[in-house]
């Protein structure tokens, strides 16, 4: 570890003490922030697990309905319907802040539509097609919610990573260096004091001899 270049003066000692205090304070607070981020992160993670299970389950229900549709309506006809249907679904996305970190906030309006709104040609109307559409709409709604949570988790994780790096830099680099420098100055000052003291003693002895 490279030593800090410092001159051994009382002034420098005072300044260094202040710097150690600041670095220590920064370290302690960032560590608290890290702990808080961890709490937030794990709460999001818990909700992700729930949401993921629900969404994936619904997605497999949707795929089963689609297979049924392929079998009964026909693969080509189903694909055709998927091209003709209205595909203008919108999600409202804004940002929310958790401890100053921007995370996505998604508003899901009603995703489920009725057959008329879906808009595929009426000649195609079929209850299995409707059912496949409805199940995918439901899956989509759940996936949108999941996407918000995962987006939040990634944003929190990135901040966590950043904070951890800062804490480490303080803990393993800056603070030890400052303390090293502090020790060096105190030693030098002590030494200088001792030298001073013995010089004074010598002078005193010399004066006494003459006297």
């Amino acid at each position, binding site marked *: 570890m490279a030593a800090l270049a410092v001159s051994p003066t009382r002034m420098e000692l005072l300044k260094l003490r202040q710097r150690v205090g600041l670095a220590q304070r*920064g370290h302690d607070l960032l560590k*608290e922030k890290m702990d808080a981020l961890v709490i937030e992160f794990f709460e999001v993670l818990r909700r992700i697990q729930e949401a993921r299970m629900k969404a994936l389950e619904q997605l497999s229900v949707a795929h089963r309905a689609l297979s049924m549709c392929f079998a009964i309506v026909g693969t080509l006809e189903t694909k055709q319907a998927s091209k003709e249907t209205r595909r203008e679904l919108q999600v409202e996305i804004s940002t929310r802040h958790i401890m100053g970190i921007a995370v996505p906030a998604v508003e899901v309006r009603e995703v489920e539509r009725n057959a008329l709104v879906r808009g595929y040609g009426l000649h195609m109307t079929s209850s299995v097609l409707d059912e496949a559409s409805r199940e995918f709409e439901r899956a989509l709604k759940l996936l949108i919610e999941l996407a918000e949570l995962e987006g939040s988790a990634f944003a929190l994780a990135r901040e966590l990573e950043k904070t951890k790096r800062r804490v480490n830099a303080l803990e393993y680099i800056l603070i030890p260096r400052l303390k090293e420098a502090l020790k060096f100055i105190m030693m030098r000052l002590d030494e200088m004091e001792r030298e001073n003291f013995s010089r004074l003693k010598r002078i005193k002895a010399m004066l006494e001899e003459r006297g």
Partner: protein
Amino acid sequence: MSADRLIKLELSKLNVHLPERRPSLREALSSARPQVVARDGSTHAFKREELEFLAGLLPEADRDKLQLPILIALEPKLGRGTARISGEAEVKVVSQVLEKEASAGELLIYRPEVAILRKKLPTTTQYLFLW
């Protein structure tokens, strides 16, 4: 050395997510869109169901006293992971949510309790970093 400036910058950023002014529970309840503006300019919205949950925990008269968001003050000198809740009404609701013995005007809570509090009141509580 710029390391010091960097630390000061980090410290100055710790609380920018907090609002300049904290409205009372009564104000929040009567607002069509209950929210606050943080010092960094972002808005923070309160969920109505949370506001109503809080109202249910407090006698009518205390609705003017409870200020939102409730601050979870993290203070290294209390020991790592220890947080302080201040204010009479704030202490009243938090101690009920956590099923803790209420003390007068101040309550110390610990990391697992902070987690529970954040889970039950995600929009009406926020962290405050103190030193």
